[in-house]
């Protein structure tokens, strides 16, 4: 592979990692607070649809993004009512949210736009444009570093930069702020938080609100940045890969970034290659597709390290004995 190909694969890696990373960070807030979230996929899908639809109608990507975040937030709160207030099964709530989003987006898409579930293709303004960072063009000529800056680092959608900035923000919030301390505590031992005089449910709602907003960003990325308009089941299981990445990264922000980059890289690789040779043995593209899931299972099984999630995860908090 020559330099240009490597560069373009890495460029694709960044683009494909972005929604994973946003969703993964989204899940981190909720799961760190003790609410297991297998509904990332559904929230992203709902956001992707809302963003695509509103951007198509208003012609504004920013309004589309706003709509995506609002719808994702609403979906999250519905899940929250079930999983936090009504103390329902968090996993089942997640399954329901995923299914609800899959059904509603296709149904409303078809009923409103009559394009087989697609939202109308977005024109200029309805979709985010790549941002050229300062001096990118000027520096493009510099050997090696020039193309890396101009092609790899510069020239992405604003959401890409937001995603990577969010890694640092999340790490800061979780480990350097009062909110982060309480959030991590509530995922480990909610009773300790309660006896310290802090409302467990309120904290959990605060956490999932962030989850909802981040899922909104991730979903909007699909329909109004990477794509130009919403298509049926557009998130295609990325929410589950994000969940896998979250586990793989052991619920930590910086490892989450690297895991999402790895999974994004595998995705970029399988798009470019139909199959690869490894030590003379043909590796089918499907094997690369399945690799994130296999890796996560292997990690979960404790064959490489051990992924132990927040201790109170999955259990609704009840005050009574």
């Amino acid at each position, binding site marked *: 592979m020559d330099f240009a190909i490597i560069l373009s694969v890495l460029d694709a890696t960044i683009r494909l990692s972005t929604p994973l990373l946003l969703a993964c960070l989204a899940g981190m807030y909720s799961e760190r607070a003790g609410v297991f979230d297998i509904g990332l996929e559904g929230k992203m899908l709902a956001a992707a649809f809302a963003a695509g639809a509103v951007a198509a109608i208003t012609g504004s990507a920013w309004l589309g993004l706003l709509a995506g975040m609002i719808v994702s937030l609403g979906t999250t709160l519905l899940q929250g009512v079930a999983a936090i207030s009504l103390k329902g099964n968090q996993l089942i709530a997640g399954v329901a949210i995923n299914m609800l989003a899959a059904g509603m987006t296709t149904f409303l898409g078809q009923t409103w736009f009559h394009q087989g579930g697609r939202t109308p293709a977005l024109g200029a303004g309805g979709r985010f444009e790549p941002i050229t960072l300062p001096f990118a063009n000027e520096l493009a000529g510099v050997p090696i570093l020039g193309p890396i800056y101009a092609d790899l680092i510069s020239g992405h959608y604003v959401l890409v930069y937001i995603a990577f900035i969010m890694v640092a923000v999340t790490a800061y919030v979780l*480990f*350097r*702020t*009062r*909110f*982060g*301390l*309480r959030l*991590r*505590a509530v995922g*480990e*031992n909610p*009773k*300790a*938080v*309660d*006896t*310290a*005089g*802090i409302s467990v449910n309120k904290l959990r709602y605060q956490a999932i609100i962030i989850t909802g907003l981040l899922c909104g960003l991730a979903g909007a990325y699909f329909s109004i940045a990477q794509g130009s308009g919403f298509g049926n089941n557009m998130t295609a299981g990325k929410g589950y890969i994000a969940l896998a990445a979250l586990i793989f990264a052991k619920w930590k922000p910086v490892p989450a970034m690297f895991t999402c980059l790895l999974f994004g890289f595998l995705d970029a690789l399988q798009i470019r290659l139909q199959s690869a040779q490894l030590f003379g043995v043909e590796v089918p593209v499907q094997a690369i597709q399945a690799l994130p899931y296999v890796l996560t299972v292997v990690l979960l099984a404790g064959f490489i390290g051990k992924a132990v999630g927040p*201790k109170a995860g999955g259990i609704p908090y009840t*005050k009574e004995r």
Partner: protein
Amino acid sequence: MGENGAGKSTLMSILYGFYTADSGTIRVNGTQHAITDSRHALALGIGMVHQHFMLVDNFTVLENVVLGAEDSGLLKPSLDRARQELDRLEHEYDLEVDPDATIEDISVGQQQRVEILKALYRGAETLILDEPTGVLTPKEADDLFRVLRTLREQGKTVILITHKLREIMAITDSVSVMRQGEMVATLETAKTNPEEIAELMVGRRVLLRVEKGPANPGKTLLEVQDLVVTDDMGVARVKGVSFSVRSGEIIGIAGVSGNGQSELLESISGMRDQKAGVVILNGQPLSLEGDDGAARARAAGLAHVPEDRQRMGLVTTFAEWENAILGYQDSPEYGAGALLDIAAAKQAATHHIELFDVRPANINLKTSLFSGGNQQKIVLAREMERDPDVLVIGQPTRGVDIGAIEFIHKEIIKMRDEGKAILLVSVELDEIRSLADRILVMFDGVIVGEADPATATEGELGLMMAGINNKTAPRGLGIAEQGPLP
């Protein structure tokens, strides 16, 4: 002061705002307050050290202290201030803890200090401690009492919730006694004595002494040799225990709860893997490896009445008749081959209910709807009616009403007289003394001494339970190493 279940913890939880009272008033410094949540209680200067610590295991000491009492949105200033404050408090009250240690890495005694520091850091003037010594070694308990005395000298109010007389006499200035949810007396400690408090605590007690003849021990049925058992966290809880139980005798294991008795019971009955040692039943070593060890123990003739019937001995969501076969579900009498003979199971259940006078006598009723005593009878009937050689029984009367206690005690004696070997574990010293033919005292995972219930005084047993044995062996030696016993 009060017995288990007298309402001490509930009362204190209301003070701390964890539950709300149905009626009544609370006054702090003369002003009436309706304490609605823990934050409110903290603001009023009430701090609480719960029986089960409210700590986040993977946080540092400092983080746990700061949690909920942060100064600002950012953590750093709070942590810095807390570090200084902690340093001050540690010196003032002689409460040394490494602020950067992670909770899961420090000892239980240290964790308790963190809880006290938490309360002090929040400016607590009144400190409530709920059964603080239950989980401590005697050394740690001594340290705790030293700290509590310092607190008193510094002008703090300390409320100690306990059911241990010794602690009340040793450290308190005044004592209030609770019985069945009511405050029956408040006395000055200096002007009372243990006997008076004990009487207040239990009320006019139904005579606990059970009619029983002398034991008539036969051959050894259960033998335990050098048993080592670890808990779920991999910490050794039973550290080389050996003893034997003969047919026709009851061996009582006394001790403060948490000294390895639970793990000992679970190991002998096949619920927990043993790290080392052997359990010999009827001369045959039991193979208890794997997660179905309990089935092999039962097959070899061992019946087990567990300490916690609701968590282990019963499936409370099942109908009564379904619980009548729990543990014996694979027995041929409940169906040949793979099928379950429901009629046979129901018949057994009806039989059990008649024999043990379980009420209501309804085999189809969900088990959670029976009272504690009747639930216990369901378990006992199931385990006793199959004519086991050895009965291993933990806390037989915990949470059981007086009437049922007598019945249960009589049944246990009856089994002994039928020539069974019975191993009884109880934290109720009275129960052990009235039922057992020999008493072994367990402390910190080892058997620290043996006593004859007829001659041993409460004081001697209490000392042994605290890990001090003047009479027989030095602390830490198993019974096997002591040579012949008197």
